[in-house]
């Protein structure tokens, strides 16, 4: 494949994303039902979160099952700054993102020396520790969490009491931004380094890839956007507690769309979220309310079957065409 057709291919991907975003943006014209709108917001949020996770877990191959830590940090930074000091959520969002990125770097320093399962378990353990600390941190509301009453129905305070649509458009923008960031990184020096680290860290190192710095960069970018997603979530639901934003289950939820859609791929997370989130939300509301766990059964079977049947994710279904193009 020559450079011109490669650039053309990338431009085509970009245009496809723009068209998709434009298409999704018109959905509220047809979807008036608040319940469905709610599912759309969550789907877009998970697409953004999983896209962020995918940078570290998918492209760089460092499987984190502790991303709820960064999500929670974003949510708590925004919520606490707003309720305790009256700082506007926009600053909280940026601050939360930066704090999460800094913490990711501080944690990455010792953690990225660990390999395989030792690394995965370290991510779980660190997030669990933070969860327990927040659960016992009285100033931050401890187990009761933080309630964020609506002060002003406006974009200034990023609070909307009457309509879900502003949240919808923000989530759409966030999903688009994380997609563009991934798209831009994919073809940069970092993107190639990340994939080299994932495939074979030792070989990459011997060829001059600075493995450690690659992992650190991926962790910082990934944590930043995960935390921005957390800030958004805090504004969206107006109430957070450690159980809903920092639990291990949440870390899994962040990773799953990317895994289902196709790990380490540009479209995987969005595709995975589009399938997984509506499905789980619908099974939960139609079958979960009975407390019979049918939603869990469906969910578990879905995860097993996709992991077994399509190890490269749903994106794998579309890959044949692309492979044919790549070898031409």
């Amino acid at each position, binding site marked *: 494949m020559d450079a011109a057709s490669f650039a053309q291919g990338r431009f085509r991907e970009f245009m496809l994303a723009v068209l998709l975003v434009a298409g999704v943006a018109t959905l509220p014209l047809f979807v008036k039902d608040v319940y469905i709108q709610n599912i759309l917001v969550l789907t877009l949020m998970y697409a953004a979160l999983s896209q962020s996770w995918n940078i570290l877990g998918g492209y760089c191959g460092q*499987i984190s099952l502790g991303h709820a830590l960064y999500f929670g940090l974003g949510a708590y930074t925004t919520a606490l700054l707003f309720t305790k000091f009256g700082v506007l959520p926009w600053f909280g969002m940026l601050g939360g993102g930066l704090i999460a990125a800094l913490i990711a770097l501080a944690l990455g320093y*010792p953690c990225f*020396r*660990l*390999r*395989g*399962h*030792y690394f*995965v*378990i*370290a991510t*779980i*353990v*660190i997030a*669990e*520790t933070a969860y*327990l*600390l927040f*659960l*016992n941190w009285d100033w931050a509301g401890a187990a009761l969490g933080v309630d964020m009453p609506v002060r002003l129905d406006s974009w200034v305070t990023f609070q909307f009491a009457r309509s879900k649509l502003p949240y919808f458009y923000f989530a759409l923008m966030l999903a688009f931004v994380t997609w563009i960031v991934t798209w831009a990184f994919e073809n940069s020096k970092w993107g190639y380094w990340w994939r080299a680290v994932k495939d074979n860290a030792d070989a990459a190192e011997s060829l001059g890839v600075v493995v450690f710095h690659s992992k650190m960069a991926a962790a910082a970018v990934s944590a930043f956007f995960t935390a921005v997603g957390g800030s958004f979530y805090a504004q969206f639901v107006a109430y957070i507690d450690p159980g809903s934003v920092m639990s*291990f289950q949440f870390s*899994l939820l962040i990773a*799953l769309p990317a*895994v289902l859609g196709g*790990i380490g791929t540009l479209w995987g997370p969005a595709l995975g979220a589009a399938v997984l989130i509506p499905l789980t939300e619908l099974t939960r509301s139609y079958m979960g309310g009975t*407390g*019979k*766990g*049918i*939603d*869990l*059964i*469906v*969910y*578990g*079977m*879905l*995860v*097993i*079957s996709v*992991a*077994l049947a399509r*190890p*490269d994710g749903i994106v794998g279904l579309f890959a044949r065409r692309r492979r044919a193009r790549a070898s031409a």
Partner: protein
Amino acid sequence: MLSAETIVQSLASGLLMGLLYGLIAVGLALIFGLMDVVNFAHGEFLMTAMYATFGLAVLVGLDPLLSAPLVAAALFVFGALVYLGIVRFAMRAKKNIGMVQIFTTFGLAILMQGLAQFLFTPDYRSIANSWLGGKTLSVGDIFLPVPQLAGAVVSIATFGLLYFVINRTDFGRALEATREDAGAVALVGIDRNRVFAIGWGLGAALVGLAGAIMATFFYIYPDVGSSFALIAYVTVALGGFGSVFGAFAGGIIIGLVEAITAMILPPSLKSVGIYSVYLAVVFLRPRGLFGSI
């Protein structure tokens, strides 16, 4: 105030609990050592064993002490079936193999929790009357809970038996050979799939034994496994992944650390001590305490 007595008392209970943690974790270590797979449904295996023990106690009136071997046998069959029905296929993945293994076993964990909720409701259950439950034994000024004491005895006996099986029997040698080179053993006539299936069965039977004892003093509910699973991962990692006797030592360390943390910090933070020790150990020795390679 912390008197010498309370300290000895806490350490003694910590030691007993630690031996039980070792027993909970050893199946995980065995399976990992054999085939490099972390079973993320390990906690749900424990939960299944607890419900099985509960069921036998309620329906047949069998005491957990008597049903323990039955539960272990049932879990053996279950573990082997999980390998043959699910994990075997996850091992065949050509791409993202680590990811496939993690998420198939996670999917299984979610599925099993859902099934438990469906069959038994999310209610907390406990076995009201058992030979062990609720009794204590006093040694001088120290009171030892009998269920945990029994768990510790079973744990030590099981590890002794495991030592024998791994080092002195043909099956143990086949296990060791398969873990060293699963491809080469086929050439000498060992059926790899059979060894793996038995390995999964054995791993599940061991956690089944632990579950039967746990059922005498712990509440039984659909996600009871999650918290113990995390402790088991930490135990196994601390001991060095795959090292069966590392799990024994790891369990004891975890039990003692938990007891000490509970004396210093509020009880709700007692796991923080365990997590910190894990991080301290792997940061200083990235292969765990007793890990080789």
